[in-house]
């Protein structure tokens, strides 16, 4: 039965689909030089979709919709809003990219991937979940390899595809075993099946390990992180930003819903929380240490994103309501901050064609505002008040302490200090160093209107989430409540 609830539960996806169709219809009618306006259409359409869903599609009490395929609750709704915001910002950043900006299909792939991510956040059935993950991933493989004339981009696209389909297939094998042992694919019934204890703990742990491989690829935690630096470096910068934020957050949405709902049994959760705690520790160490010697800004951000996966995992490991809320809050702050960082890298390489950290020398004199935004982004990534990253780290560490993972939190603090070194090192080039001829005023960095809008909005978001954090945390908490 198609009721108003089932309509409201997929309202954002319907609206994204409409925006996508508008892009397809309108794009051929625009002349080549006007075609970058598709970016305005995409971003504006996504903001309209966010507004309409916020006014008309708010969830009430958690309900199942569309034959138990979709769970309509605040957790999914909050994630959907985050993804759509990230998508709109990415569309704006794509507009002035040489190979992406004037191609309607790039925006369409972005929108298709967004539909998949939105569904990942709300899927309550393994079949739907698999379909959503693939809907989110396949357009991203194409986007990563979008620049056909570029050696690095084609290679990045192919590497991303190989890692992606290999790990997803391993996860799918896990799904097939879950279905076989429990006889159901409904995530909310799985918990019941696993509670009965029909499955030996060791077999259940094996299945969970298979599923973790697929999720590990999505969120790029340590044994499955190898693709991240290569793909971020090779793929178009706005796409890399999208991969490191929305795609990663979608992986966490799946991790939260699947593991918190289906496998919270103490006999079972002890094994996977221990595994994830070890993975979190290694991710923090490896991500931060490997970021130290990087010279390319995109690779630096890739390793820093692996480290941030480790911090976020602390909230998952805690397996409490505060833990889930802290994960959602961390992702909100992280999406804003990292999109800002990638946006700055994009704006800088658009103006200069350079991507190395040494090339940022004298940037604060070339463009004071861009320098200030970079300060905001990198200090937020470091975890300094009054930016979003600070509050996010505080809540995640609080959740870890509350659940008794003191060693993990201590490790998190130590690795944050290591992280401060390479973030501040990049800022050193921006603020203290000068260009070789000391003639910065002759080399300004022009910011076109879409960049200015996207970067200012993201900067304000980072500051807002770090200063007025109570409403954001309340929303995260309302979402986390749906998991228990």
């Amino acid at each position, binding site marked *: 039965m198609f009721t108003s609830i089932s309509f409201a539960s997929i309202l954002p996806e319907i609206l994204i689909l409409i925006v996508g169709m508008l892009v397809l219809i309108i794009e051929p009618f625009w002349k080549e030089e006007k075609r970058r306006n598709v970016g305005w259409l995409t971003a504006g359409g996504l903001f309209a979709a966010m507004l309409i869903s916020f006014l008309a599609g708010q969830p009430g009490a958690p309900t199942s919709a569309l034959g138990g395929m979709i769970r309509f609750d605040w957790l999914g709704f909050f994630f959907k809003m985050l993804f759509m915001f990230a998508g709109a910002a990415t569309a704006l950043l794509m507009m002035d990219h040489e190979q992406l900006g004037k191609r309607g299909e790039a925006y369409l792939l972005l929108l298709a991937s967004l539909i998949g991510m939105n569904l990942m956040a709300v899927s309550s059935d*393994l079949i739907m979940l698999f379909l959503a993950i693939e809907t989110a991933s396949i357009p991203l493989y194409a986007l990563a390899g979008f620049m056909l004339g570029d050696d690095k981009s084609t290679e990045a696209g192919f590497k991303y595809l190989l890692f992606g389909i290999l790990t997803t297939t391993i996860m799918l094998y896990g799904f097939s075993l879950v279905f076989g042992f429990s006889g159901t694919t409904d995530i909310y019934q799985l918990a019941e099946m696993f509670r009965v204890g029909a499955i030996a703990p060791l077999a259940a742990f094996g299945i969970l390990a298979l599923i973790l491989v697929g999720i590990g690829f999505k969120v790029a935690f340590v044994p499955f992180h190898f693709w991240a630096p290569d793909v971020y470096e090779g793929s178009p910068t706005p796409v890399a930003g999208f991969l490191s934020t929305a795609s990663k957050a979608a992986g966490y949405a799946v991790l939260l819903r699947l593991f918190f709902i289906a496998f919270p049994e103490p006999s079972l959760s002890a094994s996977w929380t221990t595994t994830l705690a070890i993975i979190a520790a290694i991710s923090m160490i490896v991500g931060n240490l490997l970021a130290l010697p990087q010279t390319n800004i995109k690779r630096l951000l890739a390793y820093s994103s692996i480290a941030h996966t480790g911090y976020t995992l602390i909230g998952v490991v805690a397996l409490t309501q505060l833990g889930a809320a802290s994960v959602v809050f961390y992702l909100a702050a992280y999406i804003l901050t990292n999109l800002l960082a990638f946006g700055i890298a994009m704006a800088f390489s658009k103006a200069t064609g350079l991507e190395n950290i040494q090339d940022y020398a004298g940037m604060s004199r070339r463009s004071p505002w861009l320098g200030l935004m970079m300060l905001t982004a990198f200090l937020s990534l470091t975890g300094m008040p009054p930016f979003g990253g600070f509050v996010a780290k505080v809540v995640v560490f609080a959740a870890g302490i509350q659940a008794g993972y003191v060693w993990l939190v201590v490790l998190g603090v130590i690795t944050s200090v290591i992280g401060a070194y390479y973030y501040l090192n990049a800022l050193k080039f921006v603020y203290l160093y000068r260009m070789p001829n000391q003639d910065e005023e002759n080399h300004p960095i022009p910011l076109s209107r879409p960049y200015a809008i996207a970067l200012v909005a993201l900067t304000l978001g980072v500051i807002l989430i770090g200063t007025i954090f109570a409403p954001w945390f309340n929303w995260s908490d309302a979402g986390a409540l749906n998991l228990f």
Partner: protein
Amino acid sequence: MVPLSWYLIFSAALFSIGLFGALSRRNLVAILLGIELMLNSVNVNLVAFWRYGDVTNITGQVFTIIVFAVAAAEVAVGLALVISVYRKRNTVIADEIDMLKF
């Protein structure tokens, strides 16, 4: 009737062969073939579990059909990317595609 475990052993073997192929072959097309084998082992699993479980519940069959469709989409994008790599580099050997590394 053949017991369920035979199907599961068969699919596990198929999965392992596919995984080994995907990890050890150097030709990009052969890597994709290995992944296809793994996807087929998933299908064998799903159909066997459906047949030996509640036959009136068609979840397993629906899952299998969706896996087919998605596998086709994945390989379509995969082969398109192989062609774009080949046009750029004139090779489909994984070891020779090594611009991006630490």
